[in-house]
C-alpha cells in the first residue's frame, strides 16, 4: 500500500510539493510568532533577573527600566546624590550601585558603576581583573576589545553626532563572562570617572549649579554647546572612592539589592515619593508583556487564519482530486481492494503530505525564530532562548490531529462512492 501511495505521489510530485510548501509556510508562521514572543519574554526576564529594585527620578517607569537594565540610550534626568548616600547606609540594603550612562565607544555604551555591582552580579572574570583606578575599565563578553585596549569615550553615541571627550582615556583591565544581558555589550567604568569626565564632583561648592547645568546631559543626547570639553578630566591613576556621601553628584539611576523581599517592598514604598521612583523591573516587564501578549494574539490570529485558509484550500483541492480519480478508485474496488484499503490510501496520502508540511513548518519556524533572535542579540546583547516546550508539542499534536480529521474528508468520499458508478463515469 505504501508503495502504491509513493508511486502515486511521485506521479503527482508537483502538486504534492505545493501542498507540502503551503502547509509548511502556514505552520512556520504560527510557530515563529509563538517562539519569538516566548523567547523575548524569557530573555528580557533573565536580563532583568539580577536587578531587584531600580530607583531613579520620578518619571516613566518603563523608561527607567529600559535605560538602566536594558541600557537603551535615552536622556534620564538626574536625582540628587544624597539618595545614594542614604541607601548605602540603609541596613535593609545588601548592596547599592549607581549607574551613570551617556557616553559610548565604538557603538558600545559606557556605564559608570561600582565594584560592588560588578562583584555581586557576575562571578569572576573571563580575563584580567577588576578596575582599581579611575582610568580603568571592564568590558562585557560581547565587546570586541582585548584586555589592555584603550578607550576614548564619546559623548552620546556616534549616530547622534556625539563628540569625543578630549584627553580622556580608559584602559581595559578585564573582561566579564557572558551573562546574556545587554551588559555583555557594555563597557563598565568607575562611576567616579563618569562624574569627573562630565565635570561633576570635583568642586562640591558648585555642585548645585553644576547639577542644574548637566541635568539630562549625563544621560546624554548630544547637541550640546561646544564648551563641554571644559567639563573636566580624569585622573587616570586616582584610586576609586566608593564611600558615597550626601554630597555625591547627581545620578540617573541606582540599582538596589535589598536583603529580604519584605525589605524590597518597604524600600519600593519608601522611594516612591514625589522626587524619586522605585520600581521592580519585573512589574514593568509584566506590563510590557501584556502589550507583547496583545501583539502576539493579533499575530497568532493572523497565523491561525492563514492555517485555516490553507486547510480550506487543501480540502477543496483534494475533493476535486478525488473527483478526477473516481475511475481509479472504482477500479481498485472492482479488482477486489477492500473499502478500508481505499479509505486508508486516500487518507494516508493526504495525511503524509500535511504531516510532512507540519514537521517542516516547525523546523522552518524554529530556524526563522533563531535567525531573528540572533539578529536581536547582536544588536541588544539580550540572549533570546528560542526553543520548543511542551506547549509546542501539544500544538503540533493538535495540528496533526486536525489534519488527520481533515484528510478523512476525501477518504470518506472515496470510501462511499460506488465502484460501478465510478467506472461508468
Amino acid at each position: 500500500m505504501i508503495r502504491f501511495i509513493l508511486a502515486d505521489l511521485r506521479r503527482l510530485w508537483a502538486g504534492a510539493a505545493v501542498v507540502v510548501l503551503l502547509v509548511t509556510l502556514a505552520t512556520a508562521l504560527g510557530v515563529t510568532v509563538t517562539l519569538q514572543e516566548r523567547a523575548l519574554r524569557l530573555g528580557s526576564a533573565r536580563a532583568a533577573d539580577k536587578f531587584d529594585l531600580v530607583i531613579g527620578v520620578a518619571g516613566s517607569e518603563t523608561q527607567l527600566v529600559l535605560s538602566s537594565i536594558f541600557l537603551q540610550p535615552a536622556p534620564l534626568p538626574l536625582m540628587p546624590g544624597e539618595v545614594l548616600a542614604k541607601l548605602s547606609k540603609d541596613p535593609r540594603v545588601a548592596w547599592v550601585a549607581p549607574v551613570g550612562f551617556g557616553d559610548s565607544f565604538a557603538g558600545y555604551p559606557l556605564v559608570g558603576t561600582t565594584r560592588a555591582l560588578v562583584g555581586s552580579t557576575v562571578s569572576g572574570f573571563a580575563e584580567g581583573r577588576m578596575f582599581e583606578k579611575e582610568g580603568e575599565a571592564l568590558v562585557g563578553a560581547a565587546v570586541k576589545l582585548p584586555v589592555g585596549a584603550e578607550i576614548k569615550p564619546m559623548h552620546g553615541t556616534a549616530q547622534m553626532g556625539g563628540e569625543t571627550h578630549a584627553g580622556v582615556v580608559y584602559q581595559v583591565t578585564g573582561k566579564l563572562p557572558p551573562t546574556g544581558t545587554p551588559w555583555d555589550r557594555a563597557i563598565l567604568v568607575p562611576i567616579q570617572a563618569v562624574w569627573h569626565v562630565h565635570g561633576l564632583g570635583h568642586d562640591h561648592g558648585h555642585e548645585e549649579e553644576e547639577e542644574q547645568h548637566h541635568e539630562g546631559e549625563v544621560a546624554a543626547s548630544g547637541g550640546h554647546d561646544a564648551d563641554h570639553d571644559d567639563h573636566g578630566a580624569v585622573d587616570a591613576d586616582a584610586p576609586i572612592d566608593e564611600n558615597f556621601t550626601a554630597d555625591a553628584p547627581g545620578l540617573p539611576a541606582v540599582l538596589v539589592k535589598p536583603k529580604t523581599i519584605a525589605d524590597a517592598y518597604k524600600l519600593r514604598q519608601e522611594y516612591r515619593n514625589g522626587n524619586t521612583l522605585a520600581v521592580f523591573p519585573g512589574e514593568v516587564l509584566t506590563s510590557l508583556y501584556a502589550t507583547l501578549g496583545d501583539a502576539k494574539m493579533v499575530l497568532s490570529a493572523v497565523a491561525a487564519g492563514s492555517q485555516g485558509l490553507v486547510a480550506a484550500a487543501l480540502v477543496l483541492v483534494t475533493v476535486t482530486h478525488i473527483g478526477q480519480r473516481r475511475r481509479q478508485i472504482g477500479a481498485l474496488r472492482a479488482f477486489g481492494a477492500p473499502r478500508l484499503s481505499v479509505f486508508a490510501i486516500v487518507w494516508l496520502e493526504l495525511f503524509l503530505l500535511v504531516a510532512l508540511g507540519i514537521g517542516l513548518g516547525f523546523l522552518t519556524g524554529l530556524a526563522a525564530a533563531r535567525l531573528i533572535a540572533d539578529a536581536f542579540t547582536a544588536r541588544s546583547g539580550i540572549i533570546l532562548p528560542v526553543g520548543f516546550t511542551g506547549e509546542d508539542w501539544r500544538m503540533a499534536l493538535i495540528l496533526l490531529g486536525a489534519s488527520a480529521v481533515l484528510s478523512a474528508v476525501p477518504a470518506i468520499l472515496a470510501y462511499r462512492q460506488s465502484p460501478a458508478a465510478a467506472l461508468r463515469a
Partner: protein
Amino acid sequence: MLSLHLDSLGKSFPGLGSPVLLVDFLAITAGERVAVTGGSGSGKSTFINVITGLERPTSGKVVWSGEDITRLSETARDRWRAEHVGLVMQDFHLFPGLSAVENVLLPARLARVADRALIARAHDLLESVGLSRPDQKIETMSRGEMQRVAIARAVLRKPGVIVADEPTASLDVEAGETVGRLLLDMAAEAKSMLIVVSHDQRLIDRLDRRITLSAGRIVADDLREEVAA
C-alpha cells in the same frame, strides 16, 4: 469451480421508466465460456456489474454455486469478488508508477493476501503472457502488453470466473488476437468460467455459447454448434 444461476433478476435506475436489465432465468455451468453481445445500451455493462456484485440488482437473485451474493453486504461482496472474480476491462485500469508485477499484485496486496507463493505466481503469469520484464513500468508498455498484464492480474488468485468487458476493443487486430487466445488459455488452465462481453466476431466465434442482449432482455442464447449449423 463456480456455476451461476440468475433468478427473476431485475435492475432499474430511478428516473428511468423501464428496467435496464430483466432476466427471468439464466444458468451458466462451471467452466463454460460465454460471449455476451448486444448493441450499446442493451444492458451488457449492467449485466456484468450485477453478476460480479459491483451493483446490487433491484430484485431477484444472483446465485454463484449456491451463494446468493445479492444478500451480502457491500464489504462482503468486495471480498467475495476479490476471491472469485477476475476482471479484465477495455481500458485496463492499470496504475502508472508501478511496475508490471506490482500491478498484478496490487489488489492482492491491498487485500493482504499476497504471500510468497502468490508473488511467485505473479512472476510466472507474466512470463506465460509473454512479458519477460516484470519490473518494467506500466506506462512504458504498449496497449497490447498492458492488456496482457491486466489478464495476469485477473487470474492471479485462480478465480472461479473470468469476466472480460470488451477486452480487445481498444487493441489492434494482432494484439487482440493474442489477448483473446490468452484469455481462453488462462481460463482453461484455471478451469474458470469465462464471460466475455465483446463485439469482436473472431473472439466470439471461439467461445462455446453466445448470449445476445437487447433492451436489457436476453433475446438469443445459442451454443456454438448451433451457430455453426
